[in-house]
């Protein structure tokens, strides 16, 4: 009987519309939703943080909040937001991807990075080397990566945010080692990429190629990704080697103004980002192998894990607005390396 009744398309349509109309407002009243669009290696951290934040938010006497997460390569995620993915919050691998959103759509003000402390980066990381157990090739610093027979695994800087930090860390070391000689830095990086047998599209893919497929002697990796690989695959398979110079990698966060639908949602989104700087969230970031700023609530183990090393910053490269087109744009230094 129901089927016969539904055979009339007009009636069926009316039922669907009525049902939709009845359901939507109930949802909107009951809870606020938030979509956080993030990059690849933050899966574990945001899974924990979303739980922490939802509890804290309710404890403050607010209505419950539902947080949805999306992960992928940083550049691809930025493009999805530009193309209309309704993220209220973006937490990406590097500022230039959020800059791209600001420039190519009107959902974000161009001065977004000044709105939160520490360049809107609640946690930072750096680039280290992951080598095979016992370091059979004796890798100690960047110079050793271009030694005879050494194979280096890094993802493609064109598609991976982490790989851009890898590239700039290498450049930063070469520049320091040669007292600022740009030609020698270019020579070094050209040499380095001759030692790369596989260019994966993302950081996780590169980790898999190195760890599971057994390709290469050194993986250039996010520090947090390297610690995670040790924790997941056992520390008797790999060692971490810390180079003399690396880069301060700042993965920033931002509120996407244009995708905010209500004042309630703005309040939650704002609190969600600000709470990342709270002592308990910072401790959580430290426990997930990120270098966070506030160490007051973290355990000693989580603090002592991080070695001191000399770090160049993106400001040394004139900021992302200058570095992005110069190194990674069409016809930029990375393209020239492969054109020769």
């Amino acid at each position, binding site marked *: 009987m129901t089927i016969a009744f539904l055979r009339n398309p007009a009636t069926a349509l009316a039922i669907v519309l009525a049902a939709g109309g009845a359901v939507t407002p109930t949802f909107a009243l009951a809870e606020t939703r938030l979509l956080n669009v993030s990059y690849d290696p933050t899966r574990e951290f945001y899974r924990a943080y979303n739980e922490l934040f939802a509890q804290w938010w309710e404890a403050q006497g607010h209505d419950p909040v539902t947080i949805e997460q999306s992960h992928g*390569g940083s*550049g*691809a995620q930025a*493009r999805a937001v*530009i193309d209309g993915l309704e993220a209220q919050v973006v937490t990406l691998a590097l500022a230039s991807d959020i800059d*791209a959103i600001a420039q*190519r759509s009107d959902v974000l003000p161009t001065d977004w990075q000044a709105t939160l402390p520490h360049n809107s980066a609640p946690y930072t990381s750096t680039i280290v080397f992951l080598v095979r157990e016992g370091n059979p090739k004796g890798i100690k610093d960047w110079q050793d990566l271009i030694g005879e027979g050494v194979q280096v695994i890094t993802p*493609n800087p*064109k*598609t991976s945010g982490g790989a851009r930090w890898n590239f700039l860390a290498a450049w930063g070391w070469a520049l320091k080692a040669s007292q600022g000689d740009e030609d020698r830095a270019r020579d070094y990086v050209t040499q380095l990429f001759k030692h*790369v*047998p*596989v*260019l*994966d*599209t993302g950081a996780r*893919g590169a980790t898999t190629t190195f760890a*599971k*497929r*057994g*390709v290469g002697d050194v993986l250039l990796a996010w520090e947090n990704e390297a610690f995670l690989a040790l924790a997941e695959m056992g520390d008797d398979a790999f060692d971490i080697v810390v180079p003399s110079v690396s880069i301060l990698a700042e993965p920033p966060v931002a509120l996407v103004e244009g995708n905010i639908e209500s004042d309630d949602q703005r309040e939650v989104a704002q609190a969600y980002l600000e709470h990342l700087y709270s002592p308990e969230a910072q401790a959580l970031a430290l426990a997930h192998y990120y270098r966070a700023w506030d160490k007051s609530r973290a355990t000693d183990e989580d603090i002592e894990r991080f070695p001191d090393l000399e770090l160049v910053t993106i400001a040394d490269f004139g900021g992302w607005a200058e570095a992005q087109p110069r190194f*990674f*744009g*069409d016809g930029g230094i990375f*393209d020239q390396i*492969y*054109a020769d």
Partner: protein
Amino acid sequence: MLRISSPLPGFGLGMGLLLAGLSLVVLLPLAALLGEGIAMGPAALAGHLASPRVLSALALSFRAALVASAFNLVFGLALAWVLTRYRFPGRRLIDAAVDLPFALPTAVAGIALTALYAPNGIFGQALAPLGITVAYTEIGIWLALVFVGLPFVVRTVQPVIDEIDRECEEASATLGASRARTLRRVVLPVLTPSLLTGFALALARSVGEFGSVIFIAGNLPGKTEIAPLLIVIRLEEYDYAGAAAIGLAMLGISFSMLLLINATQVWNRRRIGHV
């Protein structure tokens, strides 16, 4: 005039659904791509394509697709022949396995092939002493494309082999033709149209294949970077025009190749007559 008398009604409705469906799914996206190309003009289009990196990616994609499809042509024919002509234990199982590349997510296939052929994989280790590396080289790309293209050849040729009248072969043999001559003059001419169709389908499928290839290719620019990956890279750089240019080039080359294959079909049909 268009209305062909048929015992079944519904030409108008059928044609309407056909046009609407085809437009939404196939014609509009292609038109958008063409529109992008017209908007940038031929000079800019050529400019986007002229770089050595783009040319080498296009050459690699089409070369690998041709090699893999040619291999599938021979291997697929043999497989279809054995499956149709002979009865042996496990035949149905193998027959079902041929469809796996259709059903399996291509990423899964890519990862599985990489795991097997990587330097620490079972086959990779066995091949290493012979100096053959499969994963992260062009050979790996061929392998992935053979995998995705195989069912197209087998499934188009199989029903035709099934239809061949064995008496023709027997007649040929009794008239004194050797086995090779029977195969060449009696069997193959009947199979040629379906072989060409299978080849064309496998080729078209493998030229655009992305999911399985990126896992097993090394993705090094100028060496093992396929054209579809370069399209993705262009998009990541927000270079929509550059991406559209490569897309259009692939569309153009694929279209010409399919046209050539169809022309061969027509020529072949005229030469052999109705079979």
